């Protein structure tokens, strides 16, 4: 019924369309459109100062909506986990919020915040920890009070430490359920090595060793005013907020020795193919990787342009070749992955049906090779540079973005004008630069390739790509001698 009706409608439409076309005014081809110059962007300037207790603060007013949001960065991270208690910092960050304060339990704080539709959250990253808050303007006094109490007076109640650790155990048991997750995790382990938090897995035995004393000790070592930067934006007056913060944090004055530098990354190239077998998938998830660099690298802008040509967005070479022309993948891309403070990882990531595993990986590697053997075309270079330069305004389209960028730059010791310098350098990148940086920074002989899939259905063996080593996905149980924390 529906199909027949559709046919008639379609037939009529063809008739009407031909009539309609004759009547319409002509429109220009897109190449002939002229664009007015873009309006000047108003880039707000956050107010920066230090509280009497040594905490640095950035404030930025934004009166569009009656909201106030904040983010504190604490100079610590998973990188400071003890090697026999991997995961300690993350447990600490979780229980900082859930474990309550000396006067309220975490459950009471949950209710109090949600009653006013507000939030306070704590989290741990590799090289920064954060505590954030969000609330409606009218309740900001309450929200700031809770935010301060969570940051300065955590109780780390044992029952919440137990809950977090028990959930982390369950998380470990589930870590091999998602094939893409396995590929991400294993390429990091291979590129960084398993003896540091960039590359290691947290195991059941680590969690079983974590005690409340460890959690408290970690907190006290890193959560002190001079080690924290706080950024707040929203609907407030800067002068009032300054006063409010000064009063709020006046009684919090602990001191600690300066936090040492994060441990450096040592490059340990591990070329070859690493296979994780997973029988219950119809696709192979793969990742080809190398250690990359930091954003400070003078070649970083040229590398970003190179990556745009190779693997970012729908117009990249990887997308055009492996998705559009070969039809071998839905998802395929590459990124340089530069980090602020340590070498990140360059990766080509994709997935393809099991029988075309080797074909897709070889095709991806061939595209990488091409980037090192010949200059990109003038058109490719222009598209890549235009994409960066014409979208530059989106870095400034909300005060929140500006503030969070300034906060990151200050946290990692980057100049405030870093982004503008980057823009200038991108504009100056040449085809020869792209070729040079690809040759200098990408050595395919060192490429590590991880494939997660079902080798019984691979069309061609992976040995055609390189020496194949199997990845052991088994999850080590808690040693019998160690009673699980419960």
């Amino acid at each position, binding site marked *: 019924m529906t199909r027949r009706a559709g046919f008639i409608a379609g037939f009529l439409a063809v008739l009407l369309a031909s009539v309609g076309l004759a009547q319409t005014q002509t429109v220009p081809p897109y190449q002939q459109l002229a664009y007015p110059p873009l309006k000047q*962007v108003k880039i707000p300037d956050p107010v920066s100062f230090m509280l009497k207790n040594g905490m640095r603060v950035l404030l930025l007013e934004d009166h569009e909506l009656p909201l106030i949001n904040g983010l504190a960065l604490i100079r610590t991270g998973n990188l400071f986990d003890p090697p026999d208690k991997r995961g300690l910092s993350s447990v600490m960050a979780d229980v900082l919020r859930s474990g309550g304060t000396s006067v309220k339990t975490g459950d009471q704080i*949950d209710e109090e915040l949600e009653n006013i539709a507000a939030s306070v959250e704590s989290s741990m990253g590799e090289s920064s920890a954060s505590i954030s808050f969000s609330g*409606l303007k*009218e309740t900001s006094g309450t929200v700031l009070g809770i935010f301060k109490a969570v940051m300065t007076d955590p109780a780390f109640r044992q029952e919440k430490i137990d*809950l977090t650790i028990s959930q982390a155990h*369950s998380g470990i048991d589930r870590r091999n359920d998602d094939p893409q997750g396995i590929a991400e995790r294993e390429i990091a382990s291979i590129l960084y090595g398993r003896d540091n938090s960039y590359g290691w897995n947290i195991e059941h035995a680590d969690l079983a060793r974590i005690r409340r004393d460890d959690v408290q000790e970690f907190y006290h070592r890193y959560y002190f005013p001079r080690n924290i930067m706080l950024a707040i934006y929203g609907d407030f007056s800067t002068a009032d907020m300054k006063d409010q913060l000064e009063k709020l944090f006046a009684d919090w004055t602990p001191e600690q020795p300066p936090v040492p530098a994060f441990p450096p990354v040592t490059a340990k190239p591990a070329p070859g193919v690493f296979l994780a077998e997973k029988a219950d998938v119809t696709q192979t998830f793969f990742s080809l990787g190398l250690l990359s660099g930091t954003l400070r690298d003078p070649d970083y802008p040229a590398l970003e342009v190179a990556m745009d040509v190779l693997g970012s967005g729908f117009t990249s070479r990887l997308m055009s070749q492996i998705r559009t022309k070969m039809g071998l993948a839905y998802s395929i891309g590459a990124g340089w992955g530069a980090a602020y403070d340590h070498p990140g990882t360059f990766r080509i990531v994709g*997935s393809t049906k099991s029988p075309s595993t080797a074909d897709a990986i070889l095709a991806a590697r061939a595209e990488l090779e091409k980037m090192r053997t010949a200059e990109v075309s003038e058109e490719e270079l222009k*598209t890549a540079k235009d994409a960066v330069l014409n979208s530059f305004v989106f870095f400034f389209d909300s005060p929140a973005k500006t503030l969070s960028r300034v906060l990151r730059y200050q946290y990692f010791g980057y100049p405030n004008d870093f982004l503008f310098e980057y823009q200038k350098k991108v504009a100056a990148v040449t085809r020869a630069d792209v070729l040079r940086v690809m040759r200098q920074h990408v050595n395919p002989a060192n490429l590590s390739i991880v494939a997660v899939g079902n080798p019984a259905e691979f069309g061609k063996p992976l040995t055609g790509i390189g020496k194949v080593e199997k990845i052991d996905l088994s999850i080590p149980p808690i040693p019998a001698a160690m009673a699980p924390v419960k």
Partner: protein
Amino acid sequence: MKFRALIFLLIPSLLAAQSVAELQKSFEKKVTEFTLANGLHFIVIERHEAPVVSFHTYVNVGSVDDPGGQTGLAHMFEHMAFKGTPTIGTTNWPAEKAAMDAVEQVYDRLDAERNKGPHADPKKIEAISNELAAAMEKADNYVEPNEYDRVVESNGGQDMNASTAEDSTNYFYSFPSNRIELWFLLESSRFLNPVFREFYKERDVVREERRMRTESSSQGKLIEALSATAFAAHPYHNEAIGWASDIEHFRRPDAERFYKQYYVPANITLGIAGDVSPMEARRLAEKYFGRLVARPLPSQYRTVEPLQEGEKTATIASPAQPFVIIAYKRPDRHSPDAAALAVLDAVLSDGRTGIIYKDMVRDKQIALGAGSAAEFPGGKYPSLFLFYVAPSSGHTSEENQKELDRIIQQVKTTKVDDATLQRVKTKLRAGLIRKLDSNAGLASELCSYYVNYGDWRKLFTELDEYNKVTADDVARVANTYLVKEHRTVAYTYVPDAGSQKEGAK
């Protein structure tokens, strides 16, 4: 508890319903609507904070409209909408068109031979298949790859993508505000004159998408099994991605027919939010979108799901850790009970104060994660109110399911206290305010509310409906809809541990 309710009363006025009305009033000034003669509707939202604009095209077509035997066709068309036009994406359109038509002629011969079934000649099939591959290669020679995407990206387009759901298909991206005219040109052209080039390569891409999203994920497989089991007759039975064999058999004319039937101007709503002048938007809309020709709206009738008369079960054998979904039949989003169901959902699982989180994750610790969703997989037609659980290590699906049943019994028989009800309503209101600071979010939300409720203002006025929901209403809808006979229980189990399968029943 009473004490907490009192504290709530002291919370300032912004959270009161009256203030939401004021917020709506001030928002009204930023919104301009107009409809072109061909039926296309535009919603323009002015936000001049930064020189950027977000665009959203909401097409009132989804996988529920897929023809029989062609599940996933709405999604396939969405992919083709990025392939360009007779002037974008080709090096020589007349030659390309001829080559594309030649592909169809060879494909027709291939199908004709295959349709002979047991009488088909394998040698002929092989020969025509080779011919087909050669014909496709010839057509592909005229393609200017991904030109449509390249124009958008090189002009600073951000977050360009599209999505196909059960109820709708959405296309969206953002431009610097001096490029507004380019969006009008590109967006109108792709829906005026789409060219389905590289159709069969893209079909392979879509097939890979299904392998990635559904076939290689135990939760993906479970959700597919849930829908296929819960809906016997209504097209919510099928996932938006479609079944593998249907995807593999799409033909280009199928997608063209689908486009002509459903991509009619009156079925499309466009949202534009950001640094834009409504006058200029209207002028450009007339110039570019005025080219689309009015056509009759497609039928909205879809097979009505009959009453479910007993509990159903769906299982997926998988080595992955267990996952459980329990889904109850519920009415569509226009039901007078829709607001009460939304409040029930929030009471059960919003934030850290939801009943399910507190009971199963925090206190009893039998689940790593658990929650509910009021409307799955869509809301245009009667759908599902579902619960999901990822059991903690050492705890079974059965144990979790029993606890969920106990909680459901509790909300049916014990009235939700005032503090909880107020908290949920406050969060729903604050959630609205938090939605108002994103161009992309606004463009999308206003289109969606306009299409589904007839007026974008419903985004604000639905808060009044939430506000009217009483504790009795919450208990009543729980009793009406969370009924065992109308539910489907879907769970994964590890195949070589047969006892688990029994256990979860």
